[in-house]
């Protein structure tokens, strides 16, 4: 089961990711991967594609890290990213 992050822990993680801490990205991934994967699967009905969207989002977070707001809700941000990526999927 995923470890439930507190708001404080989420903020700390985002700050660390912004600074380039890959371990923080791993913690974020471990905490939300299942949720993101299930959300993507419900939209795509394809495991491989859902998995691809999941990893793509975490890669995007890593590349986009300077633009991450430390005060954002991670869950909502991931939800939005899944939505965006699954709309353009064939």
């Amino acid at each position, binding site marked *: *089961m995923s470890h439930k992050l507190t708001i404080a822990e989420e903020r700390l993680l985002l*700050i660390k990711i912004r600074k380039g801490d*890959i371990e923080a990205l791993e913690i974020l991934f471990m905490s939300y*991967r299942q949720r993101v994967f299930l*959300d993507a*699967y419900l939209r795509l009905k394809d495991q491989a594609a859902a998995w691809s969207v999941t*990893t793509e989002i*975490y890669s995007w977070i890593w590349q986009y890290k300077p633009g991450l707001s*430390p005060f954002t809700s991670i869950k909502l941000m991931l939800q939005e990213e899944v939505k965006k990526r699954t709309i353009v999927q064939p």
Partner: protein
Amino acid sequence: MDKEQITQLVIDELVGDITPEDAAMLKKILAEEPDAVTLRQDIIRLLTEGDMKGALDEEISVERALTKLEKQKGKTRKGFFRGPGTFIIILIILAATLLFYKQWQQTTISKTSADLQATMYKYPLLMFTDGSFIRLDKINDNKIANLTSGKQHNTAFIHGAINQFEKATLITARGENYQLVLSDGSTLYVGPKTSVTFFLGHTGPRREIAVSGQAFVEVAHDPQRPFIVDLPQEGKIQVLGTSFNINTEHQGGIQVALKGGSVKVENGQGSTLLTPGYAASWQKGTTIDTVKFDDKVVLSWQQGRYTCSKATLRDLARVMECCYRYPVSIDVPASVDTSRFIDGELVRGTSIIDFLNTAVIFPSHDKFKYYFDKDSTLHISLNHVP
């Protein structure tokens, strides 16, 4: 509530990451909307049967993802040490030395995010967007530009941008209130374990703050610069010159209680113009409900008084952390913590043990147990978990 919101709640339920408030809301929706029951069943079937059988077992996908992340990690490290990497390291060392010297010279309390975890909710903190922060209980006047402190170290006065930042977040400690006077003269009385993001300068076209927790706000009148309060769950308050109380943890929802003046409250489902003496409240995804409120109940937190009514153990823990300085851990699964059997008033300054022994009303006194661990965290659990 729309299909998308119900779907998200069911996913939370399936991954075991649903808050008690969301669980209660899902239960209510399922009881009221037959379509929601069908939708939930469809989602569960899709995610647990066919090629998804076993997909909820986390072992399946993690390794693949971590391998991918490991590759990225390797790339990052290798790339970093190639060519410009060494130069960057030297620059970082120089910058760190300069920063350390500057900090030492100014004796400011700013620290790196590594220390943040240790101080969060223990002391009032002013955090900046780069992760640095200042412990507000330790500041000395005139040491940090545009920031001064009251004599008791429970008030901060903001006079403008701090360390070139235009925004900052105040995070208060457990068991104590904090007062913040903004650069425009507006005053915020902030409750414990609350976070308030606010503007530091006084030149922006509008004054915008965000609150998560409890705060009483007195807005300085300035018709040229509207004052906006962003709240969770798409909530927003447009202030028209006034004083009001915000509680984003009011019975699992949000409450805005207006003491004087006028405010417009929005939540994504609609909006309402509040008049003094009335409070607007809503749960996630519902419309705004307006009722008259009792000053003595809604504003008593400013005097350190908190009322627990029909509370679960988790509700009690939230209130206890506002009233007392101890972290509280409920060692009972959320699925078991559903009985609303706790009533009582908590008063800051009184003994937490006295409260647990006397003020809390349980059906039977041997139903729960508690202890403090070596880190002074109060653990509460039930004697007989069903």
